[in-house]
């Protein structure tokens, strides 16, 4: 019998006992749905996290801290030189780091809290530097206005929530509700005055740790409004960005300067953190090793995400196991339905054999029935799983909002998942059909046709 005829006969047989077959198909759908819902949530969470990490633009950065700064000494870095014997993270160290192969640039992470005046109103926020290399990067996606015209330009890029604050709408809405374009329009091109404390070394070669602090003001022009703080890696989040070169030339007083003055070993100011930008995420590991050899602590987002990947893999396999259990139950349903169908259609099978059906014809017929239920179950199940996922997503978002966290899309149904789910349903159903199909094929026509 040709395949088309098998399918056609199978379809008519399925229609004959439509309720039972629909229930069996529903069973498969529920199995597939649980699989799809669980995996799509797992994948969605994973995508959300890695997307967040990627959009931070930090995959190619290594944070370098001095071992002297005990805040950053993590457990796995206890071996190595003692903090007191380790080198200072100063300008010389920065140049050393910048010359490591694979490092594109190394710059100090300067950030400080200061007062900015806009429309004669004072605003307090964290100010940080931004290198020219970040122009056009992922972290600045969706920025309004333009990037710094040069490394020393007296220009600032502000974060959208700060722009919102400048317009006097602070705390009125959550960060996700602020439209960058909307807040950018009134502030772009406007003047803002930054106050800062300049650290001025008194006499060259004199008392190593003495310096003066001079209060200064610097007028700046707002040229851009952005979404994110691109260099935020565990540090305080900056909302105003100056060109890195300009910021370095200001010699602005840093929070740690005071702390360092009590144990200074050189006249040179040291940095709290240096950020090394690496030529591609693949080189982060080797660069980290090289910097550690210089006697510094390092941290990269890769360190954090490695653990995260493992966690996600474990979560995904758990979800897979639970989803598969439901599918297994569905398979038993298929076997049951088809074995029942054989008992019911015993006579019909006998008739078919008597008029010329081969064992293979009957096997294919039952296979086609199992396959059709699997295929339909797979399609409906994927749809159902997607709906369940949507519902869970909706539910968590309502919960998120109620506790003040912005809503997130934690559901991802990639095409490979859809096709894999339908494929798995089909294959699993065909496997379930193996036993009933061979039973139908082996049925003795003389027995089957005997009068009851």
């Amino acid at each position, binding site marked *: *019998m040709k395949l088309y005829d098998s399918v056609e006969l199978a379809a008519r047989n399925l229609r004959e006992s439509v309720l039972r077959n629909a229930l069996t198909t529903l069973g498969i759908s529920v199995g597939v749905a649980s699989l799809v819902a669980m995996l799509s949530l797992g994948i969605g969470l994973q995508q959300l996290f890695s997307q967040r990490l990627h959009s931070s633009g930090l995959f190619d950065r290594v944070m370098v801290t001095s071992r002297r700064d005990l805040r950053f000494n993590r457990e796995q870095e206890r071996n190595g030189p003692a903090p007191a014997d380790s080198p200072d993270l100063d300008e010389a160290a920065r140049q050393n780091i910048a010359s490591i192969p694979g490092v594109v640039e190394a710059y100090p992470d300067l950030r400080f809290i200061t007062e900015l005046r806009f429309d004669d109103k004072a605003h307090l926020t964290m100010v940080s530097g931004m290198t020219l290399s970040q122009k056009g990067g992922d972290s600045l996606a969706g920025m309004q206005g333009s990037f710094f015209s040069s490394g020393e330009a007296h220009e600032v890029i502000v974060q959208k929530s700060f722009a919102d604050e400048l317009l006097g709408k602070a705390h009125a809405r959550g960060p996700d509700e602020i439209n960058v374009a909307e807040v950018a329009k009134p502030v772009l091109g406007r003047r803002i005055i930054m106050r800062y404390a300049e650290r001025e070394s008194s006499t060259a070669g004199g008392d190593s740790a003495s310096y003066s602090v001079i209060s200064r003001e610097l007028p700046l022009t707002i040229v851009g409004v952005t979404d994110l703080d691109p260099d935020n890696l565990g540090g305080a989040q900056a909302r105003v960005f100056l060109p890195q070169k300009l910021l370095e030339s200001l010699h602005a007083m840093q929070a740690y300067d005071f702390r360092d003055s009590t144990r200074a070993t050189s006249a040179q100011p040291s940095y709290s953190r240096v950020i090394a930008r690496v030529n591609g995420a693949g080189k982060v590991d080797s660069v980290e090793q090289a910097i550690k050899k210089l006697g510094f602590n390092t941290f990269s987002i890769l360190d954090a995400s490695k653990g995260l990947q493992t966690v996600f893999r474990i979560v995904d396999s758990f979800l897979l196991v639970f989803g598969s259990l439901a599918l297994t139950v569905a398979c038993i349903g298929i076997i049951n339905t088809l074995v029942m169908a054989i008992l019911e259609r015993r006579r019909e099978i006998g*008739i078919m054999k*008597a*008029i*010329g059906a*081969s064992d293979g014809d009957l096997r294919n017929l039952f296979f086609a029935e199992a396959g059709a239920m699997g295929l339909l179950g797979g399609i409906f199940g994927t749809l159902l799983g997607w709906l369940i996922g949507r519902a869970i997503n909706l539910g968590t978002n309502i919960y998120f909002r109620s506790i003040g966290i912005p809503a997130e899309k934690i559901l991802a149904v990639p095409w490979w998942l859809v096709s894999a789910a339908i494929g798995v349903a089909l294959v699993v159903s065909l496997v379930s059909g193996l036993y009933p199909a061979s039973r139908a094929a082996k049925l003795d026509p003389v027995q089957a*046709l005997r009068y009851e």
Partner: protein
Amino acid sequence: MGSATIRAVDGITLEIRAGEFVALLGASGSGKSSLLNLIAGLDSPTSGSVRSGDQDLAQLSREALAKYRRHTVGMVFQSFNLIPSMTVLENVELPLRFAEVERSKRGTMASGALERVGLAGRLRHRPIELSGGEQQRVALARALVNQPKILLADEPTGNLDSRTGTEVMQLIQTLNQSLKMTVVLVTHEAALAEKYAGRLIFLADGKLVSDQPNTAKARGDA
């Protein structure tokens, strides 16, 4: 199933020539249906051989037996054995599906067979909507749609009243005479056999009791 072996057909040697109309007669349990199943290729003998043309059915694989049933024999049964969920036309088309006849030819072949049994107007009906005699004629159309050489009829009139039974038997006789189909009729009604068959074979307890030409019919024909 007891432990004792029952020999349903035991040591029967029999030859049926092409175009013959043979009746297998005997009481219930005499082995006549078992013999018919052997000829139909539905069952295989534990020993001995069943030859049809140049094939020994006892030696054929299950697949080859299915092919033999598909092309060489057509069967009708006492209880018609139509598939209730299919229309008359679909029932008659079913053997053509197994024979992998082209879809476009099936309709014409099936309606041609139905025309031959006088049911051209009932194609879209379900078997249950037909009378017993009509159902048996559909079964006959199904048996001959693949143009087999042999027609095997197992008590074809057993569920019919005498008038429709006669109609069916006359139809079978026509097929035997006009299409030169070999007919093997199983029945327990000697009268029916004597009226239509050219040769009467009596079985009892699986053994051949007698095998003789039907002299009554020969006289009737004369």
